[in-house]
């Protein structure tokens, strides 16, 4: 049974993933790998500091070595956009849009998008603006009077996975994970945008569907 599964794993994943560092969405697609649009992870959770708030986290450009982190920067041509569906049809009813300009991150929304889909347009003033935190500095935070808080800058990559052993398994060099795994993302960083918003701004549904997109301007 194990052998059958191993062959299945090799056959399916060998072609796609050899040499690629798989962690969440790291290194997933040829068009975005290594680019400023490359998404590493999306997180969404109730704030542990305030149960009335929801926290959205977008991590991009990971994994970054410490040396690379000092020079890493958000791309002024790249929009980071949280899409929220609160009617259950998987079409975005609200977006939270994050666009860097100079040394600041401008956060728009939550707002109804100009049109749903592949193109996004900025049509409002920012809800909150935060200085982008420099590598090695204490986190700078922007707060709006309406209760939105934002951070943008390098953070420890929060993802954890024995990616090295995973690659050995799919290459047929190992049959299973090690009894004590090693986190292949240990010691690496990402560029992170963290936005905390009052749940009251997200509509009155019991739940929402969330996805993260990056898009570029011409």
């Amino acid at each position, binding site marked *: 049974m194990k052998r059958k599964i191993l062959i299945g794993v090799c056959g399916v994943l060998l072609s*796609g993933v050899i040499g690629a560092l798989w962690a969440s969405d790291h*290194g997933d697609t040829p068009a975005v790998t290594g680019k400023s649009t490359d998404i590493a992870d999306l997180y969404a959770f109730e704030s542990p*500091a305030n149960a009335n708030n929801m926290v959205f986290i977008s991590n991009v450009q990971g994994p970054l070595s410490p040396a690379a982190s000092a020079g890493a920067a958000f791309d002024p041509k790249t929009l980071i956009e949280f899409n929220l569906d609160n009617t259950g049809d998987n079409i975005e009813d609200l977006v939270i849009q994050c666009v860097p300009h100079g040394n600041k991150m401008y956060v728009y929304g939550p707002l109804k998008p100009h049109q749903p889909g592949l193109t996004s347009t900025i049509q409002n003033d920012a809800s909150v603006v935060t200085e982008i935190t420099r590598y090695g500095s204490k986190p700078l935070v922007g707060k709006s009077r309406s209760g939105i808080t934002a951070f943008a800058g390098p953070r420890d990559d929060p993802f954890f996975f024995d990616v090295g*052993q*995973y690659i050995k398994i799919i290459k047929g060099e190992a049959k299973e994970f090690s009894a004590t795994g090693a986190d292949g993302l240990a010691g690496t960083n990402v560029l992170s945008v963290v936005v905390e918003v009052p749940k009251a701004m997200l509509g009155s549904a019991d739940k929402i569907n969330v996805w993260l997109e990056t898009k570029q301007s011409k």
Partner: protein
Amino acid sequence: MRSTLLFIASVLGVVLITAALQQKSAQARVADPNMGRVFSIPGDQVGRPGVNVVFISDDQKDKFNTTMPSAMKAAYHAMIRTKLLALNPNYTKNFLGLDAETFSGVLATDVLTVSLKGATSYYDGTNVLTGRKLNDDVIDFSLKLIFGGTDGKSNPGLSSDNVNKNDKDFSNLFPYEAAPW
């Protein structure tokens, strides 16, 4: 002469005050620097961790990123079902009770379900797919769903990578993520 000077002075005064007021209100009305910007070149798209990487074939990965979630199920359900059964040919149901058709159907619409009314977690033993916290072990949960069989205990060597936590502790205070290395 004096009244002329006085007149000129008062006119100057009015002119200067008006200019100052206009500049002040112009500063208050500084346009948002991104106003009107259009972002139309698609980049990356992610809902749940690992779906594109594991379940979508190479030649479709870029297309997956530009498929709207409302259109994903029709486009990718069959492909994901095929990949699931290729990964685990002995798959019947996972420990959530989902058969291959249902499980692949859930994965095919790549969105993160997030509860606005209760605990938010990818999986914490009680809450299932109600959000994603920083310390959720999404890898073990995903591996167990694919390889763990009906009780989650099959194929123990493939159902956990035995890495259960991040290299740094998270914080309960904003911005929650740890400082960089």
